[in-house]
Every structure is written in C-alpha cells, then in structure tokens.
C-alpha cells in the first residue's frame, strides 16, 4: 500500500495536498487533510481497523461508501466511526477498536 506517484492517466498532485499529522494507536503518522481516514491508513501500510466483539476477528476496509460497517474505528474517543467516509483532521486520534466501543463520556 503506497501513494501512487506515476500513473499513465491520473495525476494525483500529492505534493500539492495539505499534509497533516494524526496518530494511529499512539504512532505518529501523516496524511492529507480532508481525505478519508482509511485512505491515510492505507498509505501508511495499515489495513486492520478493528477486532470484532464476539468472535475476535480482524476487520478492515470493504465497501468504501459507508454502508457495510467493516471499517469502524474509534476516533478521538468516539467509537464506530466510518473511516472510509470520515475526513482526516489535524491531530486526530485514530485507534483500533476492540469490541463494541465505549461511549464517550462527554456527549
């Protein structure tokens, strides 16, 4: 998983995008502002987003249009965030979600 630099048709202009930092399970990473969290995680080599509550199986990306719930992660303490359609922001705390998620104490 990496950023595509050379493509016969598409020019992604990665160098023109706004680069920001976020953390994944405490590790500092870089991504582009406004792009889905899942895209940034892929570019950083991360594919496992959560461990399922009952059978403890790893899950990641699947549909990419916010319909399947496979890509849920805990973001800034809030569980069950659809990382495939949620835009990345500066300083976001992205965490592998284990189980159902604990509701954030501040509403």
């Amino acid at each position: 998983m990496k950023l595509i630099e050379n493509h016969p048709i598409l020019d992604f202009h990665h160098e023109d995008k706004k680069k920001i930092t976020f953390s994944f399970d405490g590790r500092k990473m870089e991504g582009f502002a406004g792009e889905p969290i899942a895209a940034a995680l892929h570019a950083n080599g991360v594919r496992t987003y959560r461990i399922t509550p009952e059978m403890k199986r790893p899950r990641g990306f699947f549909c990419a249009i916010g319909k399947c719930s496979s890509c849920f992660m805990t973001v800034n303490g809030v569980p069950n965030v659809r990382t495939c359609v949620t835009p990345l922001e500066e300083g976001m705390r992205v965490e592998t979600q284990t189980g159902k998620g604990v509701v954030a104490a501040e509403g």
Partner: protein
Amino acid sequence: MKSTEILVIGGGPAGLSAAIEAASLGAEVTVLDSDLKLGGQLIKQTHKFFGSKEEHAGTRGLAIADILFEELEGHQASGKVKVLSNATATGYYKEDGVVSYVVGEDEYVRIKPRKIVMATGAQERLIPFPNNDLPGVYGAGAIQTLMNVYGVTPGDKVLMVGAGNIGLIVSYQLMQAGVQIVGILEALPKIGGYWVHAAKIRRMGVPILLQHTISEALGDNLIEGALIQEIDNCFKPVGSPKKVDCDIICLAVGLTPTCELLWQADCSMKFVPQLCGYVARRDALMRTSHPDIWVAGDAAGIEEASAAMVEGRIAGLAAAASLSHGTPEEHKERSALYHKRLEDLRAGEVGEKIRAGLCEVCCECWG
C-alpha cells in the same frame, strides 16, 4: 424545517443529470450525496466510455464527471441548485414526506421537498467463503476509490474474483497503478464483460480462469493467499484446490440496488433478477407508485453510467414538469430525445437482459 422544490438523493451520474435537467427548466434543486466527493462511481473510472456521442463516448469517466460538474456549477452559481456532500439521507417519513439527513457525524437535518428523485445507486455483493471477512478482501468499487480517487494502492498482488465488466476494468486499472494481478476467476464458462476489455487484459499476460471460484481465503490476520477451485457446469468442484499467493482479494461479483428509502416510502417494489435485486415499479417517466417520487440510475436496476445519466435526465424532467416548470413543447421534445437515447443504448444483444428486466417493472401509467 428546510424545504426545497426537488430533492435529489444521490450525486452520481443519475442524480447529477436529474439535478441539471430540472434546474435547466427552472426548478430549485437540492442534491444530497453521502460521499466526500460528488460524482458517484464516475470519478473512479479511468477508461473511455462507449455509447453515443451524447453520452460522451470515447471520453473517460472522470472527464464525463467534469462535464457534469461544470454544468452543475452554472446552476449552483445562479442559486438554482444547492449541493451537500458528506450528507447521508437517513429516512423518508411517509406520513408527511419529510426526509432526514445527517451531515458528517454531528449535524442532523430535516427537509420537506415537494418532489424527490431517488438516485441512490447500488452496493457491492459478497460471496461466502471461509475468511471472507479478513482485511484485504475488498469490493471492486472500494479498490477503485482508493486507487483512482485518492491515489493509494490497495496492496501488491491482487486476485480478482469476477470477469464481468467491473472485474476486467478494475484489473486493468490496478495494473495502470503498478499493481500485479495474479489472475481473474470467473465461475461461468464464459467471460461476462465486453470482449474488448478482456482482450486488453489477456494481452498484458493476466490469466483469466473460467469455471473457477475461490474456495477459501488464507491468512491469520491479513490476506496472505487463496485457494482457487475449478468447477463444472453445475458449479461442483473438479479436482483439488490450488494455492495462489496474493495480499488482496477483489470481489467483483455484482451489485445490488440501494432501495431502503423507496421501501420506507411504501413504493411498489418487485424482485427482478435481471435488474439484480428489488427495484421500484416505474412508469415511462421513471415515476414510482408514489406520486412525488422518481427513481433513476442503478437504484432503478443495475446497468451502467450512460443509461444512468439518461434516466436521470428523464426523472429530472418529469419531476420539474410536475411542478409546472418548462413548457409542454419542451417536455415533449426532450422526453422523445431521451427515450430514443435509452432505446439506442439498450438495443441489440447487449441490452437483452436489461430489456427483459424492465418489462417486469415498467407500467404504462399510474392511472
């Protein structure tokens, strides 16, 4: 409570076309799209489209999207069209026709439209096999999104399941992005997609294995390989499975129309295999059994972008006409033009399946 004349739910080729058409006749339109970027599946297509000149044959999908965006921008500038992305419609309330939607995670809004065009598209299907839930098993549309919209490769070695148009096209697009295709599996004894796409793939040395399926995905926490299995005409296994190395398994096994809002509106629905699932019954102007709701695009039956755009035009025209926008002459002229385009798109052997499916759900009029 917000209000609008025409609410278009879905900003892909069908929805955008509907919005543009309705606005061109003078209607005030609001478009909702649940994705971060408008354009639906169009903005992920790097290949050149077929069809007629009007449907931009010879133009790449993302260029067609740009053409639509430009037209749309004109109407946005004049205030006729408002567009909201990252906005997911969450319910249609039958008693009073109110639609609720959520912008991002936090903003919950209700809107009362006079008319609605449902252009909600489709979603990926999944086939059952052990470990089909592991990270690395992705839908074809998902891979296109990652690759063509955000410029990130999904992995290094892809096993493609499905040799319909989507399977063939996405394989080609993966190779353009520098990703290796280990092989394409097709359960049927023949390739489902257009021959021109298949030939391109074969020329690049990618094996297309007919009468093969995936029997198991391999890996503990991530995809590391797969077991592929030859099958006979009755889909029964022939011989023992073979192991292949891969880190991504791409499922291009079909789509199913997204219809929840239509069900909530109590529209008359029917299961039509040729249209790939439950779809709404509709008349020649794409109106459903609900007098204020039209449907267009993949939500009306799985087809492709060119047909989606024309259906969108028809639905937008009809919705605007129902609010007395445009003259009867304009309605007649445009309607005839669009119906001719659809006829041409669906002519011949290629359109047989769709025509058969449409027979099941097209009504003369709602009387």
